[in-house]
């Protein structure tokens, strides 16, 4: 029944919550919400609630990038978040989400990984862990905002005799860009941003677009079984660039 209702509204050019097609829901962002983490943030995007926590560890660099730190992103859809989520290892949606967040951070070169060399053979590993606590749609953009907000407030711990002294810090994590994602749904000929849970069920397809501060596109991913024409993608890129500036101002 809900499906028919949502479609009927969209067909009339309206959304059930009264928003325009280009409007985000209310966004609440808080940082440093977990004192045990080196960086953290909480985002509530229209009821979708995500924590991002950053932990830093010392590890060995990858052989092909011996002077660079390592970024690892993981996402956990906690069973608290929806009746559809069962406890257990991450499913394909959680894995996809984490990998898109990872690519947007990595490809935007937001973190200066080359500044994370501690000494030869030792680098910082930056773990970004996302924990989803309520799913009301558009988990992607909420997770991206939480990740960057957490990284922007991450501090590098003090190292003594090769060991981390937790709770004491030497400097801020070098974060030089604020990439954001804008996820766009296609319904018929319409493009809309910030899909609610109900809208996600009925759109033809979605397109995640990662945008950097200088309007460079750093990642894209189509999701769902529908299709996009080239013209749709051009329109979606314009929309993503426009909305990215709005989202970035919140960080």
């Amino acid at each position, binding site marked *: 029944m809900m499906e028919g209702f949502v479609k009927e509204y969209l067909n009339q050019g309206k959304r059930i919550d009264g928003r325009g097609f280009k409007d985000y829901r209310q966004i609440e962002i808080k940082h440093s919400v977990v004192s045990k983490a080196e960086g953290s943030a909480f985002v509530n995007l229209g009821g979708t609630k995500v924590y991002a926590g950053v932990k830093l560890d010392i590890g060995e660099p990858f052989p*092909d*990038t011996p002077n660079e730190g390592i970024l690892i992103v993981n996402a956990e859809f906690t069973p608290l978040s929806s009746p559809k989520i069962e406890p257990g290892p991450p499913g*394909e*949606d959680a*894995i*996809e989400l*984490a*990998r898109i967040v990872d*690519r947007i951070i*990595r*490809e*935007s*070169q937001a973190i200066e990984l080359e500044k994370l060399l501690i000494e030869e053979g030792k680098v910082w590993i930056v773990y970004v862990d996302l924990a989803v606590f309520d799913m009301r749609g558009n988990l992607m953009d909420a997770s991206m905002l939480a990740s960057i907000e957490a990284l922007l407030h991450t501090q590098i711990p003090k190292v003594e005799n090769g060991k981390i002294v937790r709770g004491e810090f030497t400097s801020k994590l070098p974060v030089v860009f604020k990439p954001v994602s804008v996820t766009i749904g296609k319904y018929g000929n319409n493009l809309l941003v910030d899909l609610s849970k109900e809208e996600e069920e009925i759109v033809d*397809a979605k*397109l995640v677009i990662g945008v*950097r501060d200088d*309007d*460079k*596109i*750093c*990642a*894209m*991913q*189509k*999701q*769902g*079984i*529908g*299709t*996009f*024409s*080239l013209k749709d*993608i*051009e329109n979606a*890129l*314009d929309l993503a*660039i426009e909305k990215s500036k709005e989202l970035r101002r919140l960080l």
Partner: protein
Amino acid sequence: MKKSEVPLIINGRRIDGRLPEELREIKMSIGEISNADGSARVSFGKTEAIVAVYGPRALFPKFLQESDVGLVRVIYSMSPFSVDERKNPAPDRRSIEISKVTKEALTAAIFIEDFPKAVVDIYENIIQADGSTRVTAINAASLALASAGIPMRDLVAACSVGKVDNTLIVDLNGKEDNYSESDMAVAMMPSKGLITLLQMDGRLTKEEVLELLRKAEEVCKKIYELQKKVLFEKFKVEREEE
């Protein structure tokens, strides 16, 4: 992004001697897996994929069944010997993500309402990897689906495009894939110009993204012609044998 120690474009030629918009040698064949309802092998240079399609067949456990549509499942996997360092055969996060987006890319072309409660299983195996494996596998999967007689809107043709050394290129090999400034995987239904898979990463302007997509569309149309040719030849021969 890793930087290549050697240039990837020298005097307008790529490391394997190709021009920026030149494809590697493409080979396609159909029907070598006797147990499958449809199968195909496709190679782009040294990248080679074998795909088998089973179904539509009964779907169990029963709670997975949908009363109005059929289900499509895809498993993409790389053989342990397909890459330089042996790959653990267990599914990793990359394979799980590729399987998901491939499933969506192929389902877009399939009339799933024609086989409610049933499933079509698509198994993709990379025998040898030298870049562009997911798109090579999609090209093979599309042929395997067609040869299994699965009702489809169109064939799905796929290719990779990207940017290396400030040059836009098509059909990336492994080294170009590793060191590219940007790469993009595209699958489409060429006769309708509809994109069913799109993954991009790197740093591109909006104009560059669109330029790459236009190049991808051209390449997909070429691949589409090859796919139609191999299907036509296969089934023409079989008719004559009857």
